[in-house]
């Protein structure tokens, strides 16, 4: 096929620039292949993170032509190659070097979410009966590979830098996975409302668009959580009922 222009971000958190590379793109190559080829031809010190190359480990997140994507799952031929390809690190996280960012913010925040707390077993043998529909709901959330593309695209983090107050779409999905687990008994709604600021999310669904695992983040995780919070805190009839119960 043809020699294609790649513009790749090179540098550290302090300084850096877009550097041009040319490389031959052949049938079936993904962007990660192109990066590897550039490493072996002209930039052996280019830092990039990758591992499974099958869209399972979530390591190779980057912004390709401005769109947050996994490099290993983006076919070159799907891009307008004649215009060249830009590859940049994720912008919502501190840069370590070149295409590698520090995503530890997510791990720190994750630790603050209340853990899984199963109810007592249903059967005498210590097991539970669970409906397949309930299993599937949780399986969807647990497909998350923690690539953090959703966190990267979320404007609350990206534009407004609310990293301290807002936990972002990934961790809403995480909370939903725990909260909607058929065995779980813990209450995480108050935390979500107060500490984690779920109200900042104005359901623009950008996170759903970029999710490589096609998790319906907004529709299946965030909105149901918001609804539960509304039920708990703002439903006047429920409030009356609770008041009455307290006496």
């Amino acid at each position, binding site marked *: 096929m043809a020699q294609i222009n790649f513009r790749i971000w090179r540098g*550290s958190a302090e300084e850096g620039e877009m550097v041009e590379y040319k490389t031959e793109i052949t049938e*079936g*190559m*993904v962007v990660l*292949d192109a990066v*590897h080829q550039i*490493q*072996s031809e002209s930039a*052996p*010190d280019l*830092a990039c993170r*990758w*591992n*499974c*190359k*099958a*869209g*399972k*480990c*979530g*390591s190779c997140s980057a912004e390709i032509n401005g769109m947050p994507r996994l490099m290993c*799952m983006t*076919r070159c031929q799907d891009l307008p190659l004649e215009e060249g390809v830009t590859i940049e690190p994720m912008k919502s996280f501190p840069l*370590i*070097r070149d295409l*590698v960012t520090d995503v530890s913010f997510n*791990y720190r925040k*994750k*630790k603050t979410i209340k*853990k*899984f707390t*199963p109810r007592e077993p249903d059967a005498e043998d*210590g*097991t*539970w*009966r*669970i*409906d*397949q529909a309930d*299993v*599937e709901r*949780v*399986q969807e959330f*647990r*497909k998350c*590979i*923690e690539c953090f593309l959703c966190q990267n695209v979320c404007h609350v983090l990206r534009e407004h830098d609310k990293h301290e107050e807002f936990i972002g779409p990934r961790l809403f999905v995480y909370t939903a996975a*725990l909260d909607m*687990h058929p*065995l*779980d008994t813990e209450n995480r709604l108050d935390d979500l409302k107060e500490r984690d600021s779920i109200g900042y999310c104005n359901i623009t669904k950008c996170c759903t668009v970029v999710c490589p695992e096609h998790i319906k983040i907004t529709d299946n995780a965030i909105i149901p959580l918001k609804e539960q919070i509304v039920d708990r805190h703002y439903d006047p009839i429920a409030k009356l009922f609770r008041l009455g119960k307290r006496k």
Partner: protein
Amino acid sequence: MAAQRKAAVVGGGLAGLMTAMKLAEAGHKVQIFSLVPVKRSHSVCAQGGINGAVNLRGEGDSPYLHFEDTITGGDFLNHQPPVMRMAERAPAIIYLLDRMGVPFNRTAEGVLAFRRFGGTLKHRTAYAGATTGQQLLYALDEQVRRYEASGQIEKFEGWEFTSLIKDEQGRCRGLTAQDLRTMKIESFPADAVVMATGGNGVVFGRSTNSIINTGSPVSICYQQGAHYGNPEMIQIHPTAIPGEDKCRLMSESVRGEGGRVWVPKDPTDERKPFDIPEGDRWYVCEELDPVYGNLLSRDIVSFIIYCTCRMGRGYKGGQQVFLDISHLHHKKGMTRELITDKLGGVLDIYKKFMREDPIDHPMRIYPAVHYTMGGLWVDFEKGHEGALDIESHRNQATNIPGLYAAGECEYQYHGANRLGANALLSCLTGGELASQGVLAYFQNMEVSTEDLASSVADDAQLEQQSRYDTIMRSDGTENPYGLLAELQETMWNNVGIWRLQKDLIGAQGTLDELTERSKQCAVIDAGAWSNQAAPFTRTLQHMIEMSKAVVAGAINRNESRGAHFKLDTPQRDDDQWLRTTRATWTEKGPELDLDEKVDCSYIAPRARKYKVNQHSIVTKIMGDDFFEKNVAPQVGDAAGK
């Protein structure tokens, strides 16, 4: 409770997390070292499921049958007591995971659902969608997080294990590791170290493994005196999508659901596969074994595909054959939707990368290295009535006191060939057993990290620092990435599916040469921050040392068993070779001993049940006189004898 001890676990996949969790549960402190955030470990790539003879369907399944399948699958090279323990423990492990909140698929009654997998006739495999490994890792990560919050477990993600710390008595007293961001090397004293670092598929290039699966940590322990068991046993998966630097797996379930393997009768056929009529297709597996057909075991199907392509009979003469399910939706009772339901996740990957819908178009596939059966040699102890004594400190212990191993990085459970859906299981039961071994070891331990002379730890750290500095100062001309490509080519061509004594001996020479050249690498990145090239050079050197053991084991094993098929000696030989290959590292190359006989205390070895074996495949595809023409009748004196 006994005094609180400190353990270091290397590797954050399923085996590592299981070990760490169990040790923390017993009240000890654990440090986990992982190259990548633990949730990016290779365990996430396991799709199929986890075996356990729960027998909810009343099929008469039992742990004993599970044990038997595992042993026959492993071609009788696995020690039987630990395998029996694994099979017996499996149902409890599945329930344990259920309690941790793993969303296993359910039946209409709300109980656990089980599916069928290769090598058995029972429904024995529990699964969570098509992402079982990921879902299990998720649950264990959750548990480990609890102990992290309480300060009992500490994670070092983005750190590379660089060496063991051994004291004067030869005991393992901790490890050294390098922070891959700051490039700083530090020592971490510990009372015991558990390796849980996975396989070495990357050594072969054509592999379904993640890029971190270099086997380098195993190689480091091996070079520091740990025995390496059955290095020659490498599983090759028949159906993968070929790729430049790694292959993407097409699950065995595709064949399970009726996928057929074929090539055009005429390799120069230029037609699109879809246009090639039935009469012009060669269904090679079905022709060779009409009974098992496409459902022959992994090693046999890989071998058939390889031979076909080696003879130039692959599609367009290349290294590709078809795996075809395009006939399925025409079948009675089958619809496109039903196929998507059953194989959706798997087919999506193909669609994504090859741009064709496998429901209509035959898939192009080729074998790739998939699993490392061999690994660090570990011990076990038998107790009451010959069963495993689970309270022994010898279980999962390497020959270095204080060093344990669990998961794919040790050799114990899968013999010469692994069955599908046993890998996740062996990670978990092995991890659990390793933690019990470590606990027993702690009880009898007189010393502790506090009285380790600081000079011992400092020396180990300085040694690694100087090794790293040497690489950084190196002013040679070799490109380490190029050397890896050469290593991979050597290993895949000579030590892969097709093993011939003369090629193996040739490969030995190439490896010696690569050893020297790997010391002459150019410094392609002199940066002191987040340097990827220098640690890569170090890993490459370890990979070469490990490869030598693989080659030596293959040269030495003068028989064919499971995944190890050598054309010079095409038959299994139970009289001489029911033995573990145990390699010990020396500067001149691996020394092998074969003193350890396989423990066959439950069932005696018997032959496999297929109509074909690799020998008959060669004569059928390559011609009756292939052996006379190509294989020297007398095998030269093997290394290590």
